[in-house]
Structures are given as C-alpha cells and as structure tokens.
C-alpha cells in the first residue's frame, strides 16, 4: 500500500532536457537579441537560472533574469490556503523585449494566464514565449507552451512532481498516485 511512484526523468535526464530547451530557445529566436528570462515562482526561478547558465556556456552572454510572483493575479486566489505573497523582482525594462516565461509544470493554463496579466501590468513586451519542463496536459484555457521538456498525460489520481536540487535537494521528475 502507499504511493506508487514512476520516475519520468532522473538527474541526468533533467539536465539533458534543460539543455535541449536552451538550444531550442536560441534556435527559435535566432540568437539572444532582446531576449530575457522570467521564472515563475517557485521552481521556475531555478530553471530560469540554469537556462541562463547554459546560455552563458554556449554564447558567453548572461541574459536579464527576472522573478515573477503571480499570487495577486490568480483567479483561484479565494481558495488559497496560505495567503503568502512574495516579491516580484524584474530589475530591467521589459518593454519591447522577448520574454521567455519559465515554469516547472504546465497544467490547466491558468498560471500562464495570470503570468501574462502580471507582465502586461509591468510593461509592453514584444513577445512572450513559454518554456516548461513538464506539460501534463488537461488544459482549461487555450494556452500552449512554446518549449516543453516532456509530455505526460496524467490521470486524475496522479500528480506530477518536479524536484530541483536548489530547493528539494535532488533533481527528478516523478509521478505519484495521490
């Protein structure tokens, strides 16, 4: 008895996937001009940092990096158990930039909508693209990621968990039965 876990990505696989996403971003945008990375709290932040490190290794350039907290824009805010709001920190002008929004898991699409609303209140970017490590399907809004690490269609009794060493102590993506 207990939770049955399936491993989707192990440590190496996580790293490889992030590397692939990084290259896809550079390829699609034909380089890094006017490009910036914004990670959605919480794990999106660490993914954004890693992507930025990999870009430095490849192109020897560090892109502007921002942190976005979307609590104030959520449409399900009234059901939140914990009301914590954390800071949004975007220390650059995002007007006319191409923003790569980065998150760990994409599910209903509501987080993405909230993130877009939040960004629109901060300025007028040229483009917004979305990168996620896992797309677990089951959309409730017409949103799509431009870059996805893996697709995994999760059944109602399952949940996808992304663990990153910066905050969880290890790198892995697993599916657990709830």
């Amino acid at each position, binding site marked *: 008895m207990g939770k049955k876990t399936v491993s989707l990505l192990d440590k190496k696989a996580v790293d490889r996937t992030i590397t692939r996403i990084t290259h896809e971003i550079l390829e699609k945008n034909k380089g890094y001009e006017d490009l910036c990375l914004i990670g959605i709290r919480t794990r999106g932040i660490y993914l954004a940092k890693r992507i930025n490190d990999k870009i430095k290794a490849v192109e020897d350039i560090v892109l502007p990096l921002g942190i976005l907290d979307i609590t104030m824009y959520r449409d399900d805010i009234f059901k939140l158990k914990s009301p914590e709001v954390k800071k949004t920190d975007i220390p650059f002008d995002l007007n006319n930039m191409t923003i790569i929004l980065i998150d760990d898991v994409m599910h209903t699409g509501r987080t993405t909508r909230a993130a877009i609303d939040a960004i629109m*209140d901060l300025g007028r970017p040229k483009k917004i693209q979305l990168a996620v490590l896992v797309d677990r399907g089951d959309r409730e809004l017409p949103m799509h990621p431009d870059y996805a690490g893996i697709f995994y269609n999760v059944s109602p009794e399952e949940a996808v968990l992304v663990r990153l060493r910066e905050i969880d102590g290890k790198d892995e993506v697993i599916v657990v039965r709830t």
Partner: protein
Amino acid sequence: MKWNKKDLLGIRELTKEEILFVLDSADSFKDISKREVKKVPTLRGKTVITLFYEPSTRTRTSFEIAAKRLSADTINISASTSSYIKGETLKDTAKNLESMKPDAIVIRHSMPGAPHMLSKYMKSSVINGGDGAHEHPTQALLDLFTIREKKNRIDGLNITIVGDIAHSRVARSNVFALRHFNTHITLCGPPTMIPHDIESLGIQVEYNVEKAVQDADVIMMLRIQKERGGIAYIPSIKEYSSIYGLKTEHLKRAKKDVIIMHPGPMNRGIEISDEVADGPYSVILDQVENGVAVRMATLYLLIGREI
C-alpha cells in the same frame, strides 16, 4: 502561516507572527505603488466601505487608494453626510450596511469599542481605522514597517514616543505592537497626559523630553490638543511647544541615525519644528507611502480569500 482573522480590530489581538506576516506581505504590495500600472486584480469585485465618524483625510485616502489599487470598489461614508446626523444608532447603521453586502468596512469613530460593536453585527470584515483613544492598528503596522525598513530590524531599538499619550490610539497600538519585540520604549509627555497606571504595563515614563530622547533610535511625535472636553491638560499650546516641541537641538542627544516619525497631521512649530519635520532624519513621508502598502496587505489578508 495560517491567517484566519476576519477582522482587524486591534494590534492587541495579533501575535508577533501575525504582525510580521502583515509586514512581509506589505513589502510585495509596496512595489505596486512604484510601477506605472498601479493596480492588481486581486480584490476585483470586492466592495470596501469607509465609515468615518471622525474627520480624516489621510487615513481615509490611504485606505481608498489601497482598496482601489487592489481593484476593489470603494464607497466613503462620513458622519456629517450620513444618517448619523438624523440619529441613527451605530447598530442600525451596521445592519443597514450589512444588507448591501460589503466585503469590508473600515470604521473610524471617536469612542473605544465601536469597531467591536460593528463586528458583532456584521459578517463583513471590520477594520479599525481608529476608535477613540483605544487603537489604530494599521497605523502601528505602518510605523513598524517604516522602522524595519529604515533600521533593518525592530529588535534592540530605543523608541521614544512623545505627546498626549493618555489620549493617543497611535501610542497604544504602537506600544502593543512593539512589546512583541525586544525594544526599549520610553513614553514622554506632561504628567497630566500620561495614563495613571502605566507602570503596570512595565513601560518607562520620562517627563523630561531631553532625557527621553537620549540615545533614541526612533522618536515618534504625537499631535497635541490643548483641551479635551473643556478641561485643560496643559496651560497653553505655547507652553507645551516650548517644553515638549521637538527641535533640532534635541536630536543631538539621540543616536546619529535617529529617525523622526509622526502619524500626521502635524502641528508645525508646535510638537515638531519645521527643521526637524523637513530635515534629513524625518521619515514622515515614508510613513504615508508605507501606509498604502500596509493597508493593501491588510485588505488582501482579510478579504482576499475565504477564511
């Protein structure tokens, strides 16, 4: 941490944890007032009523801006224009407003306990915007926020409050809040304006303002009224000002990085001189700015979610 308070009636009811939680949340809300689009949709569709039985521009405007920046709708009711003049009791006012289903009421009243009465009759969240000489919780929260912002801490500070302590809700709320922290509080004012049994709260009292501001990290000046209910507590404003008015010379006794605070509105030249009010140590305008952030945090925590 879990926040399950429906009302904010006083600092007395908050734990240290809860106070810090409000301050931390206020941090995030402060940024919104700095950007170009000074709005977030967080309280969209919510209604906030300000019910002010005592006049106020500062506190009311602060709450109104806070609510609007969270996308809530606001309505202002003041005693002179309301049914209060026609003799409607507070209880009836509460019940009438309740039928219109507001989400939050901010009430300012001249008598202690009025918000508590309101809360008894209303399902909406009640925020105490000042009840007589009892409490003014959002003022204390914004004062603590300002202190923390300027000093990077609240513990270990010497805080002096000067003025009509006995009749000051700002003094009371600040004392209740600061007592959770490792601070040394000194209350200063003419003996007629210091509450009789203040020693029972274990707080230091100093009648002499020079001694009171010695080594102070924070000096909080309160607004002075010469008379209350026709009884003179001090012989004249002139005399009060010469004995207790904060002047530049006093600051030499305080710490080098002392900050000067005032809940406003100031009586320039009476409790605080022009030089001090406009000088480099004054954080009075920061307090006003922080007031909006703290009130946004308060509204968000009280009505932003189902408790």
